[in-house]
């Protein structure tokens, strides 16, 4: 499996993701410049966190018009793996590859801390190494991570098992106080209907070494690497 990590002007978790993928599989991983127009040879693409194009206008709003994004849309339609973390998730909702939208956090402040998320669907290519309901301790770091979707589409998400992660308490309870940003239905990550595009606000690449506080992100990235 060969993975590419997209670099937009303003990406700042690109090196972290690169480092994580290198450590976990030593598999082939390469940066992809936002002006590039080909994904030939890649099996999967990761859109990393950061502030693409300064997040001017709205987080992810400009990145969706970049040359590489048009290719990523075609790539996704072919059923290849696309993972968007944080700003990458915002780009995926902006570009229509994933439903819903990400709004400013409920408390209108940037939040960086470890949170708990519960695995709602372990039947995906990204989560097949996780147990159903498994709780992960993973950091978040965002100002615009409040997931929103209307009730009608929320129901559809649920029906199609597209909700992959929800914020929860250390023992897996869904409660407002453990929903750090006010996301609808505590949603932390969603997948497309076809099951090959996942977006999530928490940063698995920041949780692969105990030296840095948690290694729970490994389960997810290792599943994806296959």
């Amino acid at each position, binding site marked *: 499996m060969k993975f590419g990590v997209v670099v937009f002007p303003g990406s700042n978790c690109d090196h*972290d993701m690169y480092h994580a993928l290198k450590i976990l599989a030593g598999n082939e991983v390469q940066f992809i410049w936002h002006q590039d127009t080909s994904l030939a040879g890649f099996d999967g693409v990761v859109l990393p*966190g950061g*502030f693409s194009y*300064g997040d001017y206008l709205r987080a992810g709003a400009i990145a969706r018009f970049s040359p590489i994004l048009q290719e990523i849309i075609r790539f996704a339609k072919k059923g290849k793996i696309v993972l968007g973390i944080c700003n990458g998730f915002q780009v995926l909702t902006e570009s229509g590859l994933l439903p819903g939208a990400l709004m400013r956090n409920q408390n209108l*402040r940037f*939040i960086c801390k470890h949170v708990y998320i519960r695995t709602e669907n372990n039947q995906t290519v990204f989560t097949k190494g996780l147990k159903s309901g498994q709780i992960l301790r993973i950091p978040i770091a965002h100002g615009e991570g409040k997931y929103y979707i209307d009730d009608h589409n929320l129901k559809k998400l649920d029906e199609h098992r597209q909700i992959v992660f929800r914020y929860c308490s250390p023992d897996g309870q869904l409660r407002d106080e453990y929903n750090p940003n006010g996301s609808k239905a505590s949603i932390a990550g969603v997948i497309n209907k076809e099951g090959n595009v996942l977006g999530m606000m928490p940063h698995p690449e920041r949780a692969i*070494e105990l030296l*840095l506080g948690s290694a729970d992100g490994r389960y997810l990235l290792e599943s994806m690497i296959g």
Partner: protein
Amino acid sequence: MKEPEVSLELAIQHGLNEEEYQRIQNLLGRNPTFTELGIFSVMWSEHCSYKNSIAELKKLPRSGGRLLVGAGEENAGLVDIGDGLAVCFKIESHNHPSAVEPYQGAATGVGGIMRDIFTMGARPIAALNSLRFGQLDKSRNRYLFDGVVRGIADYGNCLGIPTVAGEIYFEDCYSANPLVNAMTVGIVKHDQTASAIAQGQDCPVFVIGSRTGRDGIHGATFASEELSEESEHRRPNVQVGDPFTEKLLLEATLEMIREKIIVGIQDMGAAGITCSTTEMSAKGNSGMVIDLDKVPVREEGMTPYEIMLSESQERMLVVGKIGNEKRIREICEKWELICEQVGHVTDEPTLKVFFQNEKVAEIPPFDCVLGGGAPVYQREFARPAYLDILQNFDFDKLEAVEDLQDAFWKIFSSPNIASKEWVYEQYDHMVRTNTSIFPGGDAAVIRIKKTNKAISVKTDGNGRFVYLNPRRGGQIAVAEAARNVVCTGAIPLAITNCLNFGNPYKPEMFYLFREAVAGMGDACRVFETPVTGGNVSFYNESPESAVYPTPVIGMLGLIEDISHITTAFFKKSGDLIYLIGKNQNEIGGSEFLKEFYGKIAGDCPQLDLEYEKLIQNTLLEAIRKGWVSSAHDISDGGLAVALAECCIMNKINPIGATIKLPDANTRPEWQLFSESQSCILISISPDFRKSLEQFFIKQKVKLQYLGKVGGSHFIINDWLDIVVNDLLRNYYQIIPDQMET
């Protein structure tokens, strides 16, 4: 275009004095032009010239140890950490801009110090800060606090540099004049550093990054005067930051330096194009010809004076190697940055500035700069009378504390003690995936990828102690910062400093400055931690008052083996708790005295620098032997607060402790809340009891057994018995409660 006539009166309006104006006339052999007056006035402002501080700063140890580049040689110092790597770090103030425009003031403070680091070729890997505000019961102070934190957060977060540590205090004296000091730490391979130098006839000079606008003109001058009613009108002097452009500038700069296509580079901070052209030329003993028509500007009709003095952010001055012009442009294009050649270097050491084909300035660069022709003054000093009065304060006259638990809660509820989680959760402190000890510990620890090492960094400064005893207060600032990094398992290597003081023209104020710097020097010599550079911020005064003399130390430590990384919180039930050092029941300048009696008085705690060093070395040795489960230094709030913190600093796994303090011939509250120096709390597994005790006897370091970790209560004698979860809730809730209601 007609420039105003230059006169002594105009020079005085520019903040120069008569003697300095004459000096300019003598240097030039004529009257300066208006643009030249602008250039000299900013270059000779306190902010750029250090004219009133440099004589004292030179007394600090500024070389030795692992220093590769010493203070004043470049934009920031360089310290060798082995493996062919060096750490580059510096701290700087942005107090005055933050006082009138907290968000942009703090944001551009971060941006400025970041550029100082990456202009050296170093990639920033961590940001720290040191903040002071008035008390949070006033809405203005909450506004400033909130704005500063957001400014730091938005800039650092967008840039992708983790903000990993800092310190914050709330005290009345900072109400009108908050302190905002920002520090950046970078890392660079020895052979990839860059210099702020201009050399080589005809080498092209480029301005890259943002366009030059009218923002921030005379920002350096603003920083060199006291705040007043009029300061509000200074808001247009505050620059506006754009972290996205900074991120592009960072990547482009490092790429150019890596490819070795440039001669030199300097960021444009204070005094913009003026400062970078004169300083780079002076360093290379050369000159430049600059055509201001080529400088990309934001608005029409800008005068040469304005272009030269603008402090628009996110700009760099680059001297390219001949033949590499195309590659320099390509890199800027890749990062979507404006890049314009504005002139060239000359062997003749004269800076010539043209505008619309007219020469508007012709000056010898060396005569403008610090270390060259900039004035140097030895200010008068006089010991303030208040020192003797406060130092002789009679503590025995204080009424004894009746309810120790009540006293504990009063101190533990002070925002100075409470967790700053509300602040650091707004900072991305994990990006770059190197942060091993997060904010909230004794010092932050950043591992260095591809090595087995980590660095430990901390900012520290206690204005109260310096106010009460400037010499010893200066020593303590360094000692405590060193102790902090030692507690994480690091050996202290070097410091940077930010000296926040009042008006140096007041002899009493200058005495405090002089003594505090001397104290820092004492400590640095004993700890063998040279000063790599820093910043002086005078004039931290408002019509109401001056701030406490507040030197802030930025300490760098090295952890040779990541297995030595040590955290501050108690780990395991049954572990034994020890106090290293001697609690001397000193409450002068303590949080206890302030919170319980409302007094700031007494002398600051005693400090024996040699003993401090012995204690630090002994603890480091014990850590390396693998005996130490946790280490936390005793500071604000004393022993009781430090013990409580050890119980709850690991928020997801709090644990109790039972402590038995021996009968002492003194008041229990003095034992509990004394802020004696050279004191560290450690916990160890019972397996190591014997080895540890014998080792400390051999080292002749006092080690006192205090009690055991475990249970759900925090107990000291029959004085305190508190449920740990109550401690926890209180500790993390104090600041949110003040800010979010």
